[in-house]
């Protein structure tokens, strides 16, 4: 029985909620129990945005993630705020283009990924979030192209179907970095 708690955090507009939603949908396609909870409110207007995602083999109790197994930090305020909450032995994945400092914790695995730089270099400047998700899945040993494609079909509306390939590519860039 496995339960993984994720916390995604960054600026509003970086696709924080979308990357959380992708992961939740991926859990759903794999027949897992899932919950997704956004921070909502005035702080989302250009400020920080975060969302809690839980994927579990068992029924999920509280959807609130106080201490994540995996923290995705896409800006410095997010790392400052949530670094101390990560479970010992957990993982922090951060966008090292935007966060210059190192993680102070020594009891967690840290992945420094220059996601924003990679996104810009590869012509998909809005997809740093999915580059991170690709890396996250790779690190967790859950990078599976078939499942990714199936999930993207669910998360991306028919109107935006042209975004599917580029999302897939972004995730591949992250996974291979």
């Amino acid at each position, binding site marked *: 029985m496995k339960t993984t708690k994720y916390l995604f955090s960054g600026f509003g507009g970086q696709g924080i909620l979308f990357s959380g*939603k992708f992961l*939740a*949908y991926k859990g*759903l396609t794999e*027949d897992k*129990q*899932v*919950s*997704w*909870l*956004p921070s*909502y*409110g*005035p702080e989302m207007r250009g400020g920080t945005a975060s969302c809690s995602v839980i994927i579990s083999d068992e029924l*999920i*109790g*509280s*959807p*609130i993630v*106080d201490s994540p197994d995996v923290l995705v930090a896409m800006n410095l305020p997010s790392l400052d705020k949530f670094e101390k909450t990560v479970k010992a032995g957990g993982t922090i994945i951060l966008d090292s283009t935007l966060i210059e400092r190192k993680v102070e914790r020594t009891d967690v695995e840290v992945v420094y990924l220059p996601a924003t730089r990679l996104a810009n270099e590869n012509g998909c400047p809005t997809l740093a979030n999915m580059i991170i998700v690709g890396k996250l899945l790779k690190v967790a040993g859950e990078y599976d192209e078939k499942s990714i494609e199936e999930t993207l079909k*669910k998360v991306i509306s028919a109107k935006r179907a042209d975004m599917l390939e580029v999302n897939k590519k972004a995730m591949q860039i992250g996974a291979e970095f």
Partner: protein
Amino acid sequence: MANKVLMKGNEAIAEAAIKAGCMHYFGYPITPQTEIAAYMAKRMPKIGGTFLQAESEIAAINMVYGVSAAGYRVMTSSSSPGISLKSEGISYLAGADLPAVIINVQRGGPGLGGIQPSQSDYFQATKGGGHGDFHLIVLAPGNVQEMASLTVKAFELADKYRMPAMILADGTMGQMMEPVEFDFDVTPAPEKPWATNGTKMQRKHNIVNSLSLVPEELEKFNFERFERYAQVEENEVMYDEYLCDDAEILVTAYGIASRVTKNAVDEARKKGIKVGLIRPITVWPFPKKPFAKMAEKVKHVICVELSMGQMIEDVKLAVECKVPVTLCNRSGGMIPSTEQILAEIEKYAKGE
């Protein structure tokens, strides 16, 4: 699993209402329930229904009154301050014996308060919320699936007993996404011979009204209405019990508080503490019997709420002073942590 979709609680309510045959929705935007109105705005025109953003909450509830009087399933939704504005109309619906569904996705109060989740409208929902002798059926979902299924239930019960029903949710339940299925059976609306839907020159005029100036008559209406309420209390109580069989400590909570509490109960059980959880699903009618039963065997009851302590009063009435009841709470939009609840359970397990 193929039928499961990931949806926000607010969207699940809206879709379930449509599935329940609600073709008319009147609302006014307010965080954290605006997705309900947004969903209705998108869907209703496509299925020939009504979506109307009223000029105010007061207008919206009175439009609900009108559509219900015409015999149709109808819904409005809002969050705490907006529900206060609707209170007059809710009392009128109750006074006119009109079925309707009202959604309250609660936020912190009093006053304009904040926009984060809260359970501080429990009194308002269960003890009236408008003037006069009346009750609402109040259903408190504990997950997104129940946001859907209890919305359907609310329409069915409202029609069955000719009274307004409320979904008492909170900002977290409204904003979170979970998998949800819409494969439930819906009991269609019954015949409504009282509806003001046109005489077609075939029958006498129907009058739907809450004005009754002869006190003897008004008293009679009120006594009759409370006979119906007694039936609701007898037949419609819903609750969930979790690990109650051998429990020495009982924790109770509804909605989002019950989710966090369940985590705390699981943690306490890992430490060998015999603790159980009662989750009221109907908060009016309140599930008195399971509490009365547990009062005979537990040594302490903890009530977890996102308020300064409102449901705790019903819990105390239900246990009839046989066992101490204490509050574990946060307020103003804050949510108790698993640790806070666990610490409270441990404190009473040690007999402090």
